[in-house]
């Protein structure tokens, strides 16, 4: 390594320009905006129209409640499933491993819009294949888009389908970095595979699983396209409206930039709190 500040900054400048122009400045600017009443010109300093309004706006409270509900159910379910999948896909006993991996990893490349369209058709109440299958095996058909609980379940299923493989890839790479002889020793000591999973695999995977949890929390906090496209703008009656969708409406439909910025900072604050909580829960207890 050489000490050459000028050369180093030569290499860094283009990246830093993009960074400052499109991230640093916006971060500062949206903080400033979050205190401004922006519904009419000129914009005025009026935190009660933004931060104050957050405390009393039932639509915001609804979006906050929905987002936290999705978070509490979706993230643990998905991470557990991803961990299980990673272990199963890593097994020496698995046949056709390539095809199996493809099945779970393929959604990683599918965009939000494409899968939203398919999910809408699959879960169509009258003609969707899911309800026809439910009907076929004697279960009641579900009003996926009219029943608030069902619509919420649909969002959770969709997000899990889309992202579980992504997390499984990361966890799988963690699994493969665990040395084989740890397991060989355990097997010689007659430790069952289930015990090996809980006493060897899980503790060793903890940092990587936490990383996945933090990423998923941040992702879920920003959920937008799924309720926008799958459940038709957060329907029925706001039952699937998320903070992301609420922010989109405030910021880009009614162009209330100040209020939307306050929502953005709320999302950031919550994401930081939940991430820190995760890290704290996952800290080394030594």
């Amino acid at each position, binding site marked *: 390594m050489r000490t050459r500040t000028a050369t180093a900054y030569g290499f860094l400048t283009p990246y830093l320009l993009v960074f400052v122009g499109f991230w640093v400045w916006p971060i500062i600017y949206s903080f400033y905006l979050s205190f401004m009443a922006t519904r009419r010109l000129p914009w005025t300093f009026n935190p009660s129209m933004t931060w104050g309004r957050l405390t009393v706006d039932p639509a915001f409270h609804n979006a906050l409640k929905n987002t936290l509900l999705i978070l509490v159910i979706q993230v643990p379910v998905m991470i557990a499933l991803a961990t299980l999948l990673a272990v199963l896909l890593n097994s020496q006993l698995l046949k056709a491993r390539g095809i199996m991996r493809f099945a779970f990893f393929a959604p990683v490349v*599918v965009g939000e*819009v*494409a899968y939203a369209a398919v999910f809408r058709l699959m879960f169509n109440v009258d003609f969707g294949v899911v309800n026809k299958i439910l009907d076929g095996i004697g279960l009641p058909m579900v009003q996926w888009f009219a029943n608030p609980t069902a619509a919420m379940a649909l969002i959770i299923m969709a997000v899990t389908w889309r992202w579980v493989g992504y997390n499984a890839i990361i966890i799988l790479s963690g699994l493969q970095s665990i040395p084989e002889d740890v397991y060989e020793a355990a097997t010689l000591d007659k430790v069952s595979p289930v015990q090996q999973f809980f006493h060897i695999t899980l503790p060793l995977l903890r940092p990587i699983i936490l990383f996945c949890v933090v990423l998923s929390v941040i992702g879920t906090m920003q959920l937008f396209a799924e309720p926008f496209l799958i459940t038709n703008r957060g329907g029925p009656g706001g039952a699937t409206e998320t903070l*992301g969708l609420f922010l989109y409406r405030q910021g*880009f439909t009614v162009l209330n930039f100040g209020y939307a910025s306050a929502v953005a900072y709320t999302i950031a604050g919550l994401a930081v709190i939940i991430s820190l909580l995760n890290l704290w829960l996952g800290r080394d207890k030594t």
Partner: protein
Amino acid sequence: MRSKSATRLTRSLALHAAIVPLAIIWLFPLWMMFVFSTMPENGIFSPGIELTPSNQFWPNFQALQEDTGFVRTIFVSVVVATVYTFLSVMLTSMAGWALVRYRFHGRSVVLAIILGTITLPYFVVVIPQFIMVARDFGLSNTWFALIAPPLFNSLGVLFMRQSFSMMPTELFDAARVEGVKEWQIFLRVAMPMAKPTIAALSIILFLHSWNNYLWPLLIANDPEMMTAPVALGSLIGVTRVSWGGIMVGAVLLTAPMLVVFIFLQRYFMAGITAGAVK
């Protein structure tokens, strides 16, 4: 020995009994995407269960083209994703190189800030980005607006930095002794050696840009500059459109990426796991 192989068989059977149905469920939406794209409207909305493809892909494609000018939107998407990927690889490689190969004032600060942005929600920047680009500079529906604001990412820097840090320093010093300029060492020596990393990074960046929805939705509403996901999204939820056409669009967005995924799986995996490695 016998009982050992018997438990092995039992375990193998249990494993497959768990994973095969799950795999089928996971592939099902992709299969249905393809099936829907080939069906006439009265097939998609028919009382029976249709699980096999029909032959209406081409008519559905024509309906989609009529609704959105989809060919044009694919062209926009390809150009945006390609230029974006190239620029982003260059910017992040140069930054990663600087952070590994030079000791300079403010190095740890720059690194810490870049790392810090990983956990920062995008929503905090998207509103001012929109105000700046659309209102202050009046750049809606331009190539610049579609490509430049999403350029910043920290993953690329970390990934390239990792790659450069594993290369032998002697090689670069030798080049310096020969009198090769710093930027030439970067371009002619370091970058070619980083090819596998660049491939992995490029695939992930291209995919992000290809599937990006929110930013182009905000900034590109002129049909001439719409990206394919935005055009397709605009049809969802609108009555009196061809659902077969929408599904053709979904297939056209997904299939190329799936093909790339199948052939370059190794690079995909590397790109995704890169974020997890410190």
